[in-house]
């Protein structure tokens, strides 16, 4: 259950092959933009977690409130709700556009087949006549799975994580 720490920007690992990792992150972002939430959940390992802290530099999801801290069980409830015909806060649904960039491979553990990858994410959301922007740095712990990857941990540090938000129905 250890949570991914937010670290200062690292210069990345020289020579790491970023291309397949970047492609994976883009794929993940597109699943969210296409509202394929069940497929998005399928990217996570069975013990995978999705965390959006509620304060900058939050050390742990275990002793503080978080915007999101979903294990697969909670993620499944979230996805089932997003698929429910009477989810009022998604009537009409959100439309989102994610942009993922500034990708750095920060750690490689070839023995475990695990990669820690930092990136900057910007999500523009439009819903019910209003558009808003979410932005921050995200960090994925990815595990190699055949030719692709699965997400062991995803943490998104929004720059305004401690502000008062209007309803947020979809994951960042």
């Amino acid at each position, binding site marked *: 259950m250890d949570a991914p720490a937010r670290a200062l920007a690292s210069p990345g690992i020289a020579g790491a092959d970023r291309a397949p990792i970047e492609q994976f992150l883009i794929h993940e972002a597109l699943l969210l933009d296409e509202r394929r939430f069940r497929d998005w959940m399928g990217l996570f390992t069975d013990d995978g977690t999705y965390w959006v802290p509620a304060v900058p530099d939050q050390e742990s999801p275990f002793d503080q*409130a978080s915007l999101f801290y979903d294990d697969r069980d909670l993620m499944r409830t979230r996805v089932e*709700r997003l698929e429910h015909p009477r989810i*009022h806060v998604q009537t009409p649904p959100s439309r989102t556009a994610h942009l993922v960039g500034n990708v750095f491979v920060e750690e490689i553990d070839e023995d475990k087949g695990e990669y820690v990858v930092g990136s900057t994410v910007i999500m523009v959301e439009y819903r019910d006549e209003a558009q808003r922007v979410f932005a921050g740095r995200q960090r994925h712990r990815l595990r190699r799975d055949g030719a692709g990857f699965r997400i062991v941990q995803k943490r998104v540090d929004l720059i305004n994580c*401690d502000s008062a938000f209007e309803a*947020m129905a979809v994951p960042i």
Partner: protein
Amino acid sequence: MRNGHADHIAGLIEPGRVHRDVYTDPDVFELEMERIFGQAWLFVGHTSQVPQPGDFITTELGRQPVIMVRHRDGGVHVLLNRCTHRGAKVVNERKGNAPRLTCCYHGWSFDTDGRLASVPVPEGCAADFDKAAFGLARAPRVGEYRGFVFASLAAKGPSLEDHIGPMKGNIDDLVDRAPDGTLALDVGMHRYAYNGNWKLQVENVLDSYHVPFGHASTVNKQGVQFARREGDQKGAAVVESEKKQTAASWKDRKSYIAGNGHGWTSNTALDDNKRSSPAFDEYKRVLAEKVGAERAQQILTPRLHNSLIYPNMSIMGLNIHVRVIKPIAVDRTEVTIYPVRLVGAPPAMNFGNIRLLNVTHSASSFVQTDDLESFVRAQKGLRSHATDWVDISRGLGDEEPDRELNATRALATHEMVVRAQYKAWLGYMREAA
């Protein structure tokens, strides 16, 4: 509303309905700031937020910025966050620790009890300048119950005891769950906002009528809500699965009022005998060790779902938290939700409470977000002049006394609690401060 005349205000409230102006008229809102938020006892914070001398938090009472700070002598003060010199907000951080509170503008520095400690270039002060008269203003009245600090911005009015008296048991219900008999509000907060009037949220916390439809997306095909408490295998039966009607056990729930606009709803029917998880079982053991098995059993038998301490604070018994509703404008509201840490409970139990509150009451939760949608749509719908009246008549005349609880009781899907809130609202609004 063109003025604050008592008869005009009184005309906005009728036995089973209220005029739309109470939600939409900026003049009504201004009067609320003066007569409700300028007079009533309001929750400021909890003493656990400022454990050490110099610890402070900042918040708002109505729209007025205040500081709650612990002084060297251990006393907790509620100071108005406005420099006595030229008016700048003195403390800008949400929380922190400082030996003195220093204004950023000219450097006036205040002690943690509000006294003016030092002024740069003092020789420039007027000959009769009296430092003692330039301390940060204190909230005229401050009181505390089991760590919950309340303040009133009016010098006169009912005592805190008279105001929250009927609700002390509801506060106890939450605090007693801590094995050490005290809470800490030191595990972060959720903050959400919506484009709607503050009373929409206040009315909603005791509204059981909306749940089966408003929260349909949290209910599975069997009509059962997701498990919301540590150790629960499933949630409450909300809907009859076949007919898509409100479940019988849900319809049986009760709501209560006990004066001053306060109220509460009875517990949600859950299978408490089956409640079990490593964290919950350990918590139960620790609680029984501290207070005895019989008392622990009493404490763990749910009695309350939500309690409202009028005008703007609520306490929840299901997903335990303290909620404060802050009016920003007639059509804008911010809400702070404090998860509570049960002092003495195993960390895993407190984590269980925190993680489930993330999905019930955060800005990104499964439950609260559908409520926010309803508040926003209410504010939009009330622009319509189709009728000037909002109906709150469910169960009108069906209220009955509950002598054991010294309260008045109704079905929770009725609207007695909303009517009681408007009775209190009128009491504040008719009287000039």
